[in-house]
């Protein structure tokens, strides 16, 4: 070996070094094991909590470390993504480096000239001497190999017969198929993270929700829960209608595990609860202002409906509801402090002769705090209401998903090739020596040596007439 002077330009040298660095299985082991170890942190430290929670759990010092290293959102931290990128480059370089020569050698694997010396180099080989002429031995060997589904190439020579047999060549490509499928899955994940989005909406029955980045809307027509006899929840369901350009284009029932799909967007049933801003109906009573005694027993008003208050000039319309009444002084808005019905209040409009005369809030727990009617004797009071459920719908669009699934199918194919198709090559050299025939048989396999060991032993046994049946295993029962 002579040491050649490296005359390449610096960037070529650097490129060569980088290529060498990435073309390494040791790097693969390092990255895989590192990924395994660091991923543990992300499962021990709960992800994406509010910072105050980390403070409470780990104290100030550790919280600082957690935030600095990004362990609170570890799988999106730069260094974690960097490790994944390292693995990706590693895979790409390895594949580029190994695939072309492998492909070539698989295409040109048949030797042009048979060299019996290969046999002695094989890890598995047998030499048998038979009392039989060479031609008939050759026929028997060919038969046995064919029965074992080998492809056969014959190299007849003077005084000798040679056979090269092979099988499962394409299994060699299994690891490459797996590696390419990994790249596909990663590609799908990347496409999804750039071109996709997620959203979540709570929709009350009867309401319509906008779909982000799309011209269509969805309406919740119905929401209901099914129970087992034991009272446990069996399933929750929503009937959705897709509305596009003012027209209903699709109606479908969804439940957990059964999303609706329209124009690349999926709608999932993800939660439910009592609505905090709408009721189905409320019960309203006319009462004496002074004593609070009922004058007219409660009557029911449906959401959005106008009802005449009996024996008065007034009518009321139910227009609003908050579950946990609160007033924002600065912005002058009324809102619900929580989704719980801690301080429920219904908002009504009171009409007299077709004109709005007041728009009061009626508090279930604090009747009479705000006078509802412009009337010196009587007042209105809410005595009860029937809530509605909201349905929590997650929606997402992820154009990368199909690439991920395609990658998964390719990976399955690659696994079958890599793990269950073994590339075997067998060389047989048959030579007459006097009245006897000597058979040398040897083989190589790319993995799973036990399989070939058995096959060759089996062929050798059968050739020498040791016909103990096809299922006699060469490894034997070693007890």
């Amino acid at each position, binding site marked *: 070996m002579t040491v050649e002077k490296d005359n390449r330009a610096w960037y070529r040298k650097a490129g060569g070094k980088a290529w060498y660095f990435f073309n390494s299985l040791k790097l693969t082991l390092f990255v895989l094991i590192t990924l395994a170890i660091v991923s543990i942190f992300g499962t021990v430290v709960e992800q994406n909590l509010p910072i105050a929670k980390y403070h409470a759990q780990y104290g100030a010092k550790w919280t600082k470390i957690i935030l600095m290293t990004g362990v609170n959102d570890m*799988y999106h931290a730069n260094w974690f993504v960097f490790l994944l990128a390292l693995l990706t480059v590693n895979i790409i370089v390895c594949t580029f480096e190994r695939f072309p020569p492998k492909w070539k050698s698989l295409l040109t694997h048949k030797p042009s000239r048979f060299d019996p010396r290969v046999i002695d180099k094989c890890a598995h080989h047998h030499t048998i001497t038979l009392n039989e002429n060479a031609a008939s031995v050759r026929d028997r060997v060919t038969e046995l190999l064919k029965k074992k589904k080998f492809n056969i190439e014959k190299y007849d020579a003077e005084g000798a017969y040679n056979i090269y047999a092979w099988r499962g060549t394409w299994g060699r490509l299994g690891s490459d198929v797996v590696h390419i499928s990994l790249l596909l899955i990663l590609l799908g994940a990347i496409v999804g993270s750039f071109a996709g989005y997620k959203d979540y909406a709570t929709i009350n029955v009867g309401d319509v929700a906008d779909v982000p980045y799309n011209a269509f809307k969805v309406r919740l027509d119905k929401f209901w829960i099914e129970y*087992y006899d034991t009272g*446990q929840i069996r399933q929750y369901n929503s009937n959705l209608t897709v509305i596009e350009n003012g027209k209903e284009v699709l109606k479908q029932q969804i439940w957990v*595990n059964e999303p609706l799909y329209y124009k690349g967007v*999926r709608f999932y049933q993800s939660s439910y609860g009592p609505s905090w801003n709408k009721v189905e109906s409320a019960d309203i009573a006319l009462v004496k202002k002074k004593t609070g005694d009922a004058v007219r027993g409660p009557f029911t008003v449906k959401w959005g409906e106008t009802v005449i208050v009996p024996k008065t000039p007034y009518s009321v319309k139910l227009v609003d509801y908050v579950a946990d009444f609160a007033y924002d002084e600065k912005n002058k808005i009324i809102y619900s402090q929580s989704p719980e019905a801690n301080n429920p209040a219904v908002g009504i409009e009171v009409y007299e002769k077709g004109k709005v005369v007041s728009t009061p809030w009626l508090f279930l727990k604090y009747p009479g705090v705000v006078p509802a009617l412009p009337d010196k004797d009587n007042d209105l009071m809410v005595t009860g209401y029937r809530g509605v459920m909201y349905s929590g719908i997650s929606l997402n669009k992820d154009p990368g998903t199909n690439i991920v699934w395609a990658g998964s199918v390719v990976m399955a194919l690659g696994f079958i090739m890599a793990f269950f198709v073994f590339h075997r090559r067998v060389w047989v050299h048959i030579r007459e020596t006097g009245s006897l025939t000597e058979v040398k048989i040897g083989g190589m396999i790319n993995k*799973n040596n036990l399989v070939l060991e058995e096959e060759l032993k089996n062929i050798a046994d059968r050739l020498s007439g040791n016909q103990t049946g096809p299922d006699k295993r060469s490894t034997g029962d070693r007890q």
Partner: protein
Amino acid sequence: MILSLLFFTFSFVFYAITALLYIGSWVFKKRWLGQAATAMAVIAAFSTGMILIFRATEAGHAPFSNLWESMMLFVWAVNVGYLIMEYKHKFRVMGAFVMTFEVLAMLSAFLLPYKFKSAEPLNPALQNKWHWMTDLLSRWGAQKYAIGWLDFHVVTTFIGYAGFAISFGISIMFLLKNRSEEGGRKSALMDAFPEARVLDELGYRTIAWGFPFLTTGIISGAVWANYAWGTYWSWDPKETWSLITWFIYAAYLHARVTKGWRGRKAAYLSIAGFLAVIFLYWGVSFVLPGLHAYA
């Protein structure tokens, strides 16, 4: 609940006897002990299968919805996987290790608190059936036997776990045998082991089964999550641990084609991989918060 628990008791006893027979045949090197052990292992597999069948009829759904039920599937898969390997390769010594492991697994299932054992109806997220199968079976009015992603996901994952469990046993045997071969010492117990070279190969073969099945389990879980939750991957602890395990076994596969990493180091990786499986299976359910709390 009666019949499944009855067969659980039977199986527990069967596994104890099976383990003793395998150990006996290893120590005393009597052929008839080995044959009796194999027969007993077949009976135990059958009995474990009965646990699963009765639990399915009692619960009205495939028996994979809590820890106890999945343990039975695991024990059954390890047993069947072992028997297939014994049939193919005719080594019985492994049985002593695998069946002892089965006894421990049965014991841990037995010790589970009641809430992990009882037959429960499926919560909304667990109800997933393949439409095509439901449609097909409804022709004969048998749609309630349709299965879905839950069943596929659990079964593939547990076949993977079973492969890894067997490989774990083989890796320990490999380390023992390797040490005795390198030390050149003779020992009657070690002589009954297959050569280290063969153990290394068998350890690889079981992982070559486990790895694709675990991968299929992870991917089918992703497909299902995409139906149920709207994302195929959300880095919840169970998912992440399955990936950790997957990384370790991927490292194992590559260690075997790397110079200097074959044999002993690869065996250590296989052992580390199985410890990760145990944590993935039990640890995550008990220790870490997450969506997979049921099994």
